[in-house]
C-alpha cells in the first residue's frame, strides 16, 4: 500500500515535471527602455534554457513587448492573462508602465515577479497585493547605498561639497529632495541643478558650479549625458576630485575613451565580479550569445527565472500560490549575492528581494569598470582625487 502510494506520488511528480509551466514575460523591447528590456530578456532566456536542460522543471516563456508605453503594455498584459493563460508573469521594468499594470494585475491575480520598477509610487500601487515579488531594490535603497558612499568620502577623504546635476524626469528628480537633505545631514554643502537629459548642454551649469568648487560632481541621469559631462567639465575648467554618476546604463565605447578615466558610478553588477554565481553567469552568457553583457538587468532576469525554477521544484506543483509560498522562504545565491524575500522597509509589500546592499561603487580604471566600494566588493582602491582634478 505504502509502496503504491509512493509510486503514485512519484508519478504525479513526473506528471507535473512533464507539463511545462507557462511563464509570461512583459518587457520594454521597443521604446525608450529597450536596452534594459533586451538585456533582461537575454538573461531570462538563458536561465530558462538552463532550467529546461536540467529537466527538474520545464518552463515555457511567452514574451510580449510593452513598448515602454502604458497604452501598449495594458493590452499586451491582458493577452498574457486571457489568451496565453499564464499564471506567472515576469516583468515590470519601467515604473510608470508597471503602475499602469497594477489595475489588470489585481484583476487577474497572477504571481508577479518584478524585475525593475524602483519608484516607491509603484510600491503604493501594489500595496496589499499578495502575489507581488519585487526583486529590484526600491529607490530609497538606491539613495541609502549612494549615501553610504558619500559618508565614506566625507570621512576618509574629507569631501565637503557636492554639486548635483539631475535630469528633470522621474529618474533624476524623484529622490532629489531626500538626497539634498541627507547629504546636508552628513555635513556636506550641496548645490543641485536640474538639466534636460540628452541636450548635451552643461557648460552653463558647470561654469556656475566653478565658483562653488565642489569636491564631488554627482550627476543623476542617463547614458547620453556621460560623455558631455566628462568633456565639458574639463572644458570649463571645473576640477572636482570625483565625477560620480548613477545612470541605469553607460554608453558603449565610453570605457575606451580616456575621458572616462576615474569616473565613478553605482551599479548592482559587473561582469568582472568575482563571486561564483556571477562568474558562472558570465560564462554561460558568453557561450549562448557570444559576448559579455554589461547591463545588470541581464543577471537580474537570469536570477528571477532561476529562483522561480527552484521554487517550482520545491513546491512540487505548478500552482501559483504554492510556488509563491516556496518563493517566500527561498534562500539562494545569485550573481548579486544572496537572495531572500522579506517585507519591504515601508511594510507596504510583503516580498522584497534585494536591498541597498547589492549596490556598489565602481570606477573606470584603465579602460574597464572595477568595483572600488564597499570594501568587501572592492577589487581596487578608489582613486581619489581623479585625474580630472590632478591635471
Amino acid at each position, binding site marked *: 500500500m505504502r509502496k503504491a502510494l509512493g509510486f503514485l506520488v512519484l508519478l504525479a511528480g513526473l506528471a507535473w515535471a512533464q507539463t511545462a509551466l507557462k511563464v509570461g514575460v512583459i518587457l520594454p523591447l521597443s521604446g525608450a527602455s529597450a536596452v534594459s528590456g533586451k538585456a533582461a530578456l537575454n538573461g531570462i532566456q538563458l536561465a530558462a534554457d538552463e532550467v529546461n536542460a536540467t529537466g527538474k522543471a520545464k518552463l515555457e516563456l511567452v514574451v510580449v513587448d510593452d513598448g515602454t508605453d502604458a497604452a*501598449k503594455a495594458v493590452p*499586451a498584459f491582458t493577452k498574457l492573462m486571457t489568451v496565453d493563460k499564464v499564471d506567472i508573469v515576469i516583468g515590470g521594468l519601467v515604473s510608470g508602465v508597471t*503602475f499602469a499594470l497594477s489595475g489588470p494585475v489585481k484583476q487577474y491575480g497572477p504571481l508577479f515577479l518584478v524585475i525593475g520598477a524602483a519608484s516607491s509610487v509603484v510600491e503604493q*500601487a501594489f500595496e496589499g497585493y499578495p502575489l507581488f515579488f519585487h526583486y529590484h531594490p526600491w529607490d530609497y535603497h538606491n539613495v541609502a547605498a549612494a549615501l553610504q558612499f558619500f559618508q565614506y568620502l566625507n570621512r576618509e577623504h574629507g569631501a565637503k561639497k557636492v554639486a548635483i546635476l539631475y535630469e528633470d524626469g522621474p529618474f533624476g528628480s524623484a529622490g532629489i529632495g531626500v538626497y539634498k537633505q541627507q547629504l546636508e545631514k552628513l555635513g556636506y554643502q550641496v548645490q543641485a541643478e536640474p538639466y534636460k537629459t540628452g541636450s548635451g548642454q552643461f557648460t552653463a551649469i558647470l561654469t556656475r558650479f566653478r565658483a562653488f568648487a565642489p569636491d564631488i560632481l554627482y550627476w543623476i541621469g542617463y547614458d547620453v549625458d556621460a560623455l558631455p559631462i566628462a568633456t565639458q567639465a574639463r572644458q570649463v575648467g571645473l576640477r572636482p576630485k570625483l565625477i560620480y554618476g548613477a545612470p541605469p546604463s553607460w554608453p558603449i565605447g565610453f570605457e575606451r575613451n580616456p575621458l572616462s578615466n576615474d569616473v565613478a558610478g553605482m551599479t548592482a553588477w559587473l561582469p568582472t565580479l568575482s563571486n561564483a554565481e556571477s562568474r558562472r553567469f558570465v560564462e554561460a552568457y558568453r557561450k549562448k550569445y557570444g559576448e559579455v553583457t554589461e547591463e545588470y538587468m541581464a543577471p537580474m532576469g537570469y536570477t528571477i527565472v532561476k529562483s522561480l525554477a527552484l521554487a517550482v521544484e520545491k513546491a512540487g506543483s505548478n500552482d501559483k500560490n504554492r510556488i509563491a509560498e516556496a518563493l517566500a522562504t527561498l534562500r539562494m545565491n545569485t550573481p548579486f549575492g544572496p537572495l531572500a524575500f522579506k517585507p519591504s522597509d515601508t511594510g507596504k509589500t510583503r516580498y522584497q528581494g534585494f536591498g541597498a546592499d547589492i549596490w556598489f561603487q565602481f570606477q573606470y580604471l584603465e579602460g574597464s569598470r572595477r568595483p572600488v566600494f564597499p570594501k568587501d566588493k572592492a577589487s581596487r582602491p578608489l582613486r581619489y582625487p581623479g585625474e580630472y582634478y590632478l591635471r
Partner: protein
Amino acid sequence: MRELSHLPFLSFFLLLFALLPFLPLGIWGAFLLDVGFFIQLFTAMALSWDLVARTGQLSLAHGAFFGLGAYGAGLLAPHVGTLPALVFGAFVAGAGALLLGSVTLRLHGLYFAIASLAFSEVLRTLALKLAFTGGPIGLPVPPPFGGVWPLAAYYLSFGVLLLATALSHWAEWSPFRLAQAATRQSEAVARVLGVRVVRVKLWSLLLGSLVAGLSGGVYGMKTLFLSPYDAFSLGRAVEALVIPIFGGLYSTLGPLVGGVVLVGLEQALRLWIKEGYLVVYGAILILVILFLPRGLVGLLGRRRG
C-alpha cells in the same frame, strides 16, 4: 442623398464598438476590449484633430490638450467623482485651446503648427515644475467610479468616441463645413463670403480640444498613472495627425477607419513581428502615402473634391 452615404459605415463602426464587450470573441475577448479601449481614445483624438485641421490649422498641441484633460481629471477625480472630473478636465483643455487660439489667430499652416508645438512644450515643462501636479514623479489616478464596474473605462472611452464622431459628423454635414472649408482654402476669400473666420477657427479649436481633453481624462483612469512626459507627449499629437492622413483627411470616416486600422495594426505588428516591428509600420505609412494619396477611404472611390 449621396452626401449621407457614409452614415451606414459610421453606424457600423460605432455599433461594433458598442457591442464589442458582448461579441463571442472567445479567449481574445478581454484583449480586444483593451485594444478597443485605446483605439477608441486615439481615434477620438484623430477626429478632434481633423475637426481642427478642416480650418487649415495644423495642431501640434493636441498632446497638450490631452495632457491638460488628463491632469485636470486626474487631480479632481478623487474629490468630485469620475464624471465631473472628466468634464472639468475637458474645460481645462478648452481653456488652453482658447488661449492658444486667440493669440495665434493670424498664424497659418506650418507657422501655426510650430506655434502650437511650442505651446505644448511649454505646458509640459509647467506640468513638470508645478508642485500640485506631482511633478516628475507622476500622479496616481483612481479608476472610474471607484473601480466597481469593470466595463466603465471601456464605455467611457466609447462615449468619447461617440461624441467625437457626432461632432465631426455634424461639422461635416452642416453649413459649418462650408465655413471651415472656406477658411482653410483662403481666409481672405472666406471673409468676403461672409464667413466669420475668427469664430470658425476658435470654435473648431475649442471643440477639438474638448474631445482631446476628455480622451486624456479617460486615458488616465485606465493607466492609473500620469507623468508629464507621457501625458504631454508630442507623440500623442503626432499620432492624432498621422491617423487622419492615413485614413483620409477632412472627413469623419477617414480618421475612424484610419484609427481602427492603424492602432490595431500597431498592436498586431508588435505582438507578432516583435523586434523591428516599427520598420514595417514606417514602411506601411510610406506605401499608403505613395499609393493611396487620399488615404484608406480613397479605396472607397468617390469623395468630394
